């Protein structure tokens, strides 16, 4: 990357300056950012779980599960839920777009997929709420 590229990417006149971005560009940038987060997560997920599985009898696997089921970790899992659902739903929109579905109504398709994403995020929240806030401080 050239030195001037930095200005090209992040300067006031760049296409990525917040006030220069329209819906589709936000969706595009969001897809890249969540994608990078997910690649990092997947490799952490694989390395932690696989190395914990190699010990005889799975003692370190169970210890890892014990740690990661604590409320703080489950709360971070909820952030993961948001990232995954956004990436999946926006990705679905990209696939539809590439198949020629809804090209003339791109913005509408974007907001419909985001509405579905919001419903799924609420569903995820309801599913893990009791793990983040255990009743009676158990």
């Amino acid at each position, binding site marked *: 990357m050239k030195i001037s590229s930095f200005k090209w990417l992040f300067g006031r006149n760049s296409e990525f300056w917040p006030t220069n971005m329209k819906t589709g560009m936000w969706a595009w940038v969001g897809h890249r950012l969540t994608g990078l987060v997910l690649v990092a997560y997947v490799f952490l997920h694989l390395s932690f779980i*696989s190395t914990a599985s190699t010990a005889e009898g799975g003692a370190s696997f169970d210890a890892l*599960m014990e740690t990661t*089921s604590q409320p703080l970790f489950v709360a971070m899992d909820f952030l993961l839920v948001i990232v995954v659902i956004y990436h999946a739903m926006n990705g679905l929109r990209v696939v539809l777009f590439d198949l020629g579905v809804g090209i003339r109504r791109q913005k509408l398709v974007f907001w419909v997929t985001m509405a579905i994403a919001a419903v799924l995020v609420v569903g995820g929240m309801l599913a893990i709420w009791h793990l983040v806030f255990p009743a009676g401080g158990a």
Partner: protein
Amino acid sequence: MAEQRIATSKVAGTWAWAFQRLSAVLLIAFLAVHLYVAHFMDVGAETGEEPLITFDEVSVRLDQLVYIIVDYGMLSMVLLHGLNGLRTVLFDFDMFVRRKKVIDVALWVVGVATLIWGIVILLPFITNAGG
């Protein structure tokens, strides 16, 4: 500036573009199965306190070959989709476009090595599955 940019598919390749879409749809299905199996499915064994995932519980499942096939399938799709996505992001921001071959080889090495690692990790369960 828009006119400076080259269409991603021209840099990344049509096959990569098409496969990224196919693996995307497959991954939505795999992820739904993965979450259901890991967190909601009852394996029908006394495997400790819910909702904690335990090694015993996972072992009960992995004794059936179908779960191992699903895991290998999901792992290969995740690696192809994730690493190809990483490649797309790099090329989108004009990084390493001149070093495309190097990036491609490096990502293939990482992907294949991780896949082999994943296969090796689950091998003991396959040998158990028979008896």
